[in-house]
């Protein structure tokens, strides 16, 4: 009996929350730093941290530093909800950043609604609530987004294909990937291509060969896959092992650049909204340098999403002024235009109605066997976001 009292008292005492630095912008981040989604969602958070550390080192914004509180949710919805609750009610953050699986969105959004704090999705797929007309509190800087990705990919396929397209699809058995591939299938039919097969693959699969077998048997000449990177690339490798020779196009997740160099396959295309580091723009050089100085665990080329998030955060906080509370930050976010310095095809512009961007740019890369390097296959194509 007494033990319970002691235990409860100890627990309460041990968990005194850290003192809040009153003299800084307080930004909360919850993301899949570890767990199955860490490959795609961990690096953006590191990139954001890199950017914020650099900002703080040069004096901060409006003379104040940024305090970034990062919590790990392992891609699990209940942990994300607990993190959000803690950041919003205890740390009193003015802005919440989320970089995790789509299953964490609903509970986190519910928490932000209760606290009336804006939510910035960075590195996590953009939900349709950020397209116009946008939800009041949700903003998204991430490259990939449902609907537009498929349209851009199918347009590229139609343009590049030299013969009538028989198209196959590969998705992961998570609802977002399935939904997007279903949409792509419809669009493909409308564009005059022949969808021949669609495979939905469960996340922790040992052997992708059975799924690849079914795909190959349907004899497509193009295959489009929109799913987490592991599914995309393993399906491709299994197909090649089975002797399929066609063209494979897939979304350029952050792992894409190094994987292109590893696979060395001229018919493996990646389409994405971020420029790859092989372009060697000044911004890329800067990021590489910063990453080396800070001794980051991830390769420098995976820092793009986080850096873009940092650019947007800087612009927002600068516009918001000081002191900034949640409402002022949100108001500032509705009116922001950020030059991505070449990391994307164009600027990120947010308005009251559009929390995604006014134009989404796409580029297609592949490994060029002749040059033995990653090369741009199709330069920036813009889609107006309506």
């Amino acid at each position, binding site marked *: *009996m*007494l*033990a*319970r*009292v002691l*235990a*409860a*008292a100890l*627990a*309460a005492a*041990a*968990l005194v*929350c850290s003192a809040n630095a009153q003299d800084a912008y307080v930004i909360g981040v919850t993301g899949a*730093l*570890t*767990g199955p989604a860490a490959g795609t969602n*961990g690096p953006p*958070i*590191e990139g954001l*941290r890199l950017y914020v550390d650099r900002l703080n080192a040069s004096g901060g914004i409006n003379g104040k530093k940024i305090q*970034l509180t*990062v*919590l*790990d949710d*392992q*891609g*699990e*919805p*209940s942990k994300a*909800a*607990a993190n959000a*609750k*803690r950041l919003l*009610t*205890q740390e009193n953050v003015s802005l919440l950043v989320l970089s995790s*699986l*789509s*299953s*964490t*969105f*609903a*509970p986190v959004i*519910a928490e932000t609604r*209760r606290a009336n704090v804006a939510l910035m999705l960075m590195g996590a797929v953009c*939900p349709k609530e950020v397209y116009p007309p946008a939800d009041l509190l949700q903003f998204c800087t991430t490259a990939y987004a449902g609907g537009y990705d498929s349209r851009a990919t199918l347009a590229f396929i139609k343009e590049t294909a030299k013969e009538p397209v028989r198209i196959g699809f590969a998705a992961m*058995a*998570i*609802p*977002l990937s*399935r*939904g997007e591939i279903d949409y792509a299938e419809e669009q493909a039919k409308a564009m005059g291509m022949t969808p021949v097969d669609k495979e939905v693959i469960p996340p922790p699969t040992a052997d992708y060969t059975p799924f690849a077998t079914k795909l190959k048997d349907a004899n497509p000449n193009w295959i489009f896959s929109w799913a987490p990177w592991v599914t995309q690339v393993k399906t491709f490798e299994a197909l090649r092992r089975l002797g399929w020779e066609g063209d494979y196009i897939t979304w350029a997740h952050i792992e894409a650049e190094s994987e292109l160099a590893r696979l060395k396959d001229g018919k493996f295309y990646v389409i994405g909204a971020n420029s790859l580091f092989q372009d060697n723009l000044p911004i890329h050089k800067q990021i590489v340098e910063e990453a080396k100085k800070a001794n980051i*665990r991830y390769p420098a080329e995976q820092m793009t999403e986080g850096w873009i998030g940092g650019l947007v955060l800087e612009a927002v906080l600068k516009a918001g002024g000081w002191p900034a509370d949640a409402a002022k930050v949100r108001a500032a976010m509705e009116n922001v235009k950020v030059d991505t310095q070449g990391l994307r095809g164009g600027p990120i512009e947010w308005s009251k109605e559009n929390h995604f961007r006014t134009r989404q740019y796409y580029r297609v890369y592949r490994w060029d066997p002749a040059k033995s390097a990653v090369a741009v296959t199709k330069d920036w194509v813009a889609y107006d976001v309506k």
Partner: protein
Amino acid sequence: MSRSPRASGYFRTSYDQDLALVQTRLERTSLGVFIVALLAFPLIASPFQLDLACQVFLASIGSLSLMLLTGYAGQISLGHAGLLAAGAFTVGILFREANAPFWITLPAAAAVGGLLGIIFGLPSLRLRGLYLAVSTLALHFVVIYLGGEYEARRGFSTGIVIDPPKLGGVSITDARAWYFILLGAAAATLLVCLNLLRARTGRAWRALRTRETVAEALGIGVASYKLLAFVISSAATAVAGALFAYYRGFVSVEAFSLFLTIQYLAMVIIGGMGSLLGALLGAIFVTLFPYIIEIGLLALPGAQRHASLLFAMNYAAFGLVMILFLMFEPLGLVGMWRRMQSYFLLWPFKHRPAAGSRG
């Protein structure tokens, strides 16, 4: 079950006194102090600490039911997370499809849990030990698969969002309200478990656990008591899952992994098998453990860098602690508590009087 009195000069003169939960004056006072502390806690706690307390209460409902099944009735079950998922999904499905209020969904969750308990319990009639554990494990995967299929087919791409329960038109969202609700639920579960164990059912379960053939020979219906254990335990677990769904306002199949089952088993083992106090202590320990690790990690220099390793550290530390308890402290936290207690009670003596010499 009668316990040896801890106060001298205290004699029990009737069966009722013997069975009573609170016997001596010391026990009454400490229980009173404890209840006052629990009720006063929300007045001084931060929202984060309230959230932790609510998590502990939810965990204790689950661990109490698992303790009944595994600690007392002796049936190993690796399907705990599946039962929690079943309760949560019942609430989610009923809410989404029929907009049912909580006084329908909670009993429905209990009913679904009971039904699943029969299914999970049927193998126990033929199998024992390892094979029973494996069959419950397999059933867990089937339940999770069905939940995932429901989510996918009905288009709940990011999980099912549930509105907070309404009582007389007022939504229950305040953290303090939830604290008291969950405290009440945990206390109710504890009382139910205590009473079950004091009664015929508890005695039958203990007999089952010790020697099944002898129990059968004594006339205890082995099959019916085994199934009863599964049904009661599963119903309670499903209710825990349902409350969890309402508390988080959200249901998704990823939250119910095998690791969750292992955490509950750890609660039972670390707490101490065969003791309800053990279930509670284990629940507190396992729920608070990740936060303690986090505080410890953040206290080290270079804290924020290590934040990305937190999950792995948690896993490793959790596994290590489990192994240490299993190897060196098989009686669990309750064993440690009892040792501490006997040290003070018996002082200045070191050992209890030898068996056969009362007094």
